[in-house]
């Protein structure tokens, strides 16, 4: 088979009067690789190496040596390299083992696992009837209830936790109601495991609900009908036919919510009492309180490992199944119209969404009240909190927007090109790289970034840049998820057509592929922006003094017991998020129609 190749070279050489065919080919290949697109690919890899891989690796090194590590600095600075190598010589699994077995850490891990298990169990069981109701029945007020079921998504768990305090705290109105009805003290202690579980259950359940709805839609309805025809009664068809088919989806949702609850920062930091050790809170305290890099690294590595394990399990459960996304759409679905069942489900759903709705309303009312303590309604009303928020506090709003747009811009650029490289050039490396942020909890990413960039020669903490980078890396998967669909719909032919008409690879991609990617990019942008401005863990860890966004102020206010300010800010945050989402849906809807 070598003969034709040599011939080809010889002829090619003649045709182009080039000195040597082989050399020409190599140079052409070099040029091919190092055009604008090739360069961008190198830059993207460099970006992720510097801001994700090296910081994570540093964490591992820190956890093994018990000392801070400066890997990036070591690359450029000889003395740093020497000290780091010296420390590295002491690296041992023993250091890790010693740290991880400290009683406080062991109990923190145990408590967090318990918390996540409860949340996963309760949420899954609680959401299952609602999912069935939405997916498979003609339940009344389905649309309204569906909307109410998505509301908790726009509320940071931190705000939900704050709302629970407003309602069920010692001087909360629900506690007051309870006492008036003859109860004693409070219904339950908000600052406890129960409180945290409740906050998570009611503010995280949409993350379980919607994938489950998709799973129930996939399960073939005719099986259920067949079971009914065969004489199965009441709940039998559900348990014998529908549930088994939807089970992979249900299990995967449960695993997902476990991972989310395990690493959720907002509710835990607001509600955890001093004597309740949770791993997220512990990791935060090690850094924010004691600058204990070794302890914090070990803790977040354990967290990442747990999340990764559940993430892997979830993939395993879903392998070969075509659903598990938020937009599972089956063929036409036959709905269960049994009146009793539908009404029952509607009532049940209303009861479930009642709590988050009341919590949100309490926050709103609180934001307008001057004094509201141990009574059913505020004793005095005021607009002062909003005056403060729009006055001195407006910097935080501006910061939120700037940081959000910064992260969004970065996500747009990264997301666009990564989508292209992953789908067109089959870059499995980039594909893998961009799933890493999914398994790294916010607190872990935050600690990794601070650890790597708080010492010379690359000091980036204290500025907005590192925070924006952190946000972007953390939310990039959302962007990629929404662009993937658009990308798959764009045939390779348009790009080839552009190429054959004289466009360079970069021009072809930017004049033809990217404009067609726009709908996906827009949808992704909203997701990114919204999640960034309600992001808690990264913000609380990393926000520098001059760049504190709203979420930071809310956290600070809750921490200091400034419940009015926290409420007003929370309301504003939720309003911004909702407005943006509406605008986005309008925009994307308009594009879809055109």
């Amino acid at each position, binding site marked *: *088979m070598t003969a*034709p*190749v040599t*011939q*080809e070279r010889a*002829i*090619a050489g*003649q*045709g*182009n009067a080039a000195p040597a065919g082989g050399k*020409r*080919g190599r140079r*052409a290949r070099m040029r091919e690789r190092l055009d604008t697109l090739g360069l961008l690919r190198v830059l993207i890899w460099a970006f992720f190496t510097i801001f994700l891989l090296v910081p994570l690796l540093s964490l591992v090194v820190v956890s093994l040596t018990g000392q801070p590590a400066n890997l990036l600095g070591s690359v450029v600075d000889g003395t740093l390299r020497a000290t780091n190598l010296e420390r590295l010589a002491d690296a041992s699994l023993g250091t890790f083992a010693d740290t991880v077995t400290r009683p406080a850490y062991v109990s923190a891990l145990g408590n967090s696992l318990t918390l996540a298990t409860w949340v996963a169990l309760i949420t899954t069981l609680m959401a299952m009837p609602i999912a069935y109701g939405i997916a498979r029945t003609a339940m009344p007020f389905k649309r309204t209830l569906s909307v109410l079921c998505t509301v908790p998504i726009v509320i940071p768990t931190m705000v939900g936790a704050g709302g629970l305090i407003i309602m069920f705290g010692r001087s909360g109105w629900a506690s007051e109601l309870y006492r008036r009805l003859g109860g004693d003290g409070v219904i339950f202690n908000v600052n406890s495991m129960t409180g945290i579980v409740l906050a998570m259950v009611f503010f995280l359940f949409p993350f379980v609900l919607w994938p489950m709805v998709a799973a129930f839609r996939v399960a073939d309805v005719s099986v259920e009908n067949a079971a009914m025809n065969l004489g199965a009664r009441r709940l039998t068809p559900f348990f014998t036919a529908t549930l088994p088919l939807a089970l992979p989806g249900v299990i995967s949702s449960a695993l997902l919510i476990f991972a989310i609850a395990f690493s959720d920062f907002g509710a835990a930091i607001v509600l955890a009492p001093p004597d309740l050790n949770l791993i997220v809170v512990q990791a935060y305290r090690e850094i924010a309180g004691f600058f204990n890099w070794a302890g914090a690294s070990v803790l977040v590595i354990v967290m990442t490992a747990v999340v990764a394990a559940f993430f892997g399990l979830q993939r395993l459960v879903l392998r070969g199944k075509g659903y598990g996304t938020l937009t599972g759409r089956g063929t036409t679905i036959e709905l269960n119209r049994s009146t009793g069942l539908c009404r029952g489900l509607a009532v049940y759903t209303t009861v479930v969404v009642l709590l988050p709705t009341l919590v949100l309303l309490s926050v709103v009312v609180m934001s307008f009240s001057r004094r509201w303590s141990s009574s059913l309604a505020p004793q005095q009303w005021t607009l002062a909190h909003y005056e403060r928020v729009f006055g001195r506090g407006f910097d935080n709003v501006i910061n939120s927007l700037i940081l959000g747009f910064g992260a969004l811009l970065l996500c747009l650029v990264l997301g666009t090109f990564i989508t292209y490289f992953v789908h067109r050039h089959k870059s499995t490396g980039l594909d893998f790289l961009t799933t890493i942020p999914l398994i790294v909890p916010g607190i872990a990413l935050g600690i990794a970034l601070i650890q790597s960039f708080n010492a010379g020669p690359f000091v980036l903490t204290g500025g907005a840049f590192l925070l924006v980078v952190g946000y972007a890396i953390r939310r990039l998967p959302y962007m990629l998820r929404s662009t993937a669909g658009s990308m798959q719909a764009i*045939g390779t*032919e*348009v790009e*080839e*057509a*552009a*190429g*054959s*008409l*004289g*466009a*360079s690879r970069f*021009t072809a991609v930017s*004049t*033809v592929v990217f*404009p*067609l990617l726009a709908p996906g990019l827009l949808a992704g942008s909203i997701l990114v922006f919204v999640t960034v401005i309600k992001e808690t863990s990264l913000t609380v860890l990393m926000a520098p003094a001059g760049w504190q966004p709203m979420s930071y102020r809310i956290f600070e206010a809750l921490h200091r017991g400034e419940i009015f300010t926290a409420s007003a800010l929370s309301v504003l945050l939720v309003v911004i998020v909702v407005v943006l989402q509406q605008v986005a849906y309008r925009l994307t809807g308009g594009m879809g129609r055109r």
Partner: protein
Amino acid sequence: MAAEPMLTTERVEYAEQDDTDGFLVLRHLTKRFDSTVAVDDVDLSIRQGEFFALLGPSGCGKTTTMRCIAGFEQPTSGHIEIAGRSVAGLPPAQRDTGMVFQNYALFPHYDVFRNVAYGLLMDHLHGSGVAGRARALASLASGRLAHRQADLRDEVGRALEQVDLAGYEKRKISQLSGGQQQRVALARALIKRPSVLLMDEPLSNLDRKLRTQMRYTIRDIQQEVGITTIFVTHDQDEAMSMADRIALMRAGRIVQVTTPAELYERPANPWAADFVGTSNLLDGEVTGTEPGAVVVSIGGHELRSTVDGDDHRPAVGGACTVLIRPEAIAVVPATAHGDAGGAVPSAGNRPVNGLPGRVRHVGFLGAVVQYEVETPVGLIRAEHQFGGPTTLMDVGDGVVLDVPPARVRLLTAEDEP
């Protein structure tokens, strides 16, 4: 891979014969994808201005061949030359080819004008001069700015006129019918006056009626522009009705390169005969030769075939396949010949083939009547012009099939799967 001798000699013949006037030349072109050989040692030589069809069943490597020419695939080995210039290693844009894709691959976010002007804009964009580049960028960004440029307007107008779409400049792609989109794609491919036009199943997305209509439209435009054209299709009607010459492909290899009429009348082997048109293929054995004719025996029945000079003459005693096209067979009522059976003498003194049989099916299609006749050598299809109701035969009628020896072709079986 024991290549069958006849095919090999034929291929060499074509290569030699055409090398002098080949405008687009493929030599030993091979393209492998991992384990599959999509294109296997293909030699082709296409003349300037020729309308050349690549015909073959699905998966035979037509698209891959074309993509190698266009520069979207790099050949595993072999050589491609356009206008005497090797295109090895050249990117698609520098090959002086225009391409029309199966799904048109129009840019849905641009209007007709910018779709067609895209090639020109790319020249400006990658060309020299900051002002030119800026104008190209602006035109890509805004349709209004693009329309305002006189030079673009002239060129695009000319191209659109060519495809009969003058005045459609401002339409969106989604506001065009399938046939119009097809013609925009053609205008876009022609705008830079390439020397070769490549079309990959351009008609397969159109409905049937439009498809036949577009055949002539495309052919007319091609003739008008005078552009060397390669047209990929798996539809034999399309290839036959449009092309000057056809290359018949199978499993990555070229089976035959010839004109439509030759392909129909002298297929290289039984597979080619079966692929193009309907055919009666009968297995037989050469039993003897007569002056100007070969005698074959099919299950005891003798048929005579007059052999033209350039035909490959099978050896006596060798196996062969007999091809008789349905329209070559005259179906005559048995009574007209007295007793059925044997060779029936008719006017003139050349040998005449007669096959007795009984009508099994009659298919009346209006202009044409199809018969399926049960004969001792098997079921034979015949086709007649409809000559009035009285000429129609009924199922069960005894008939004699009269086959002119000049239309009895002897094919040597190919030994590929």
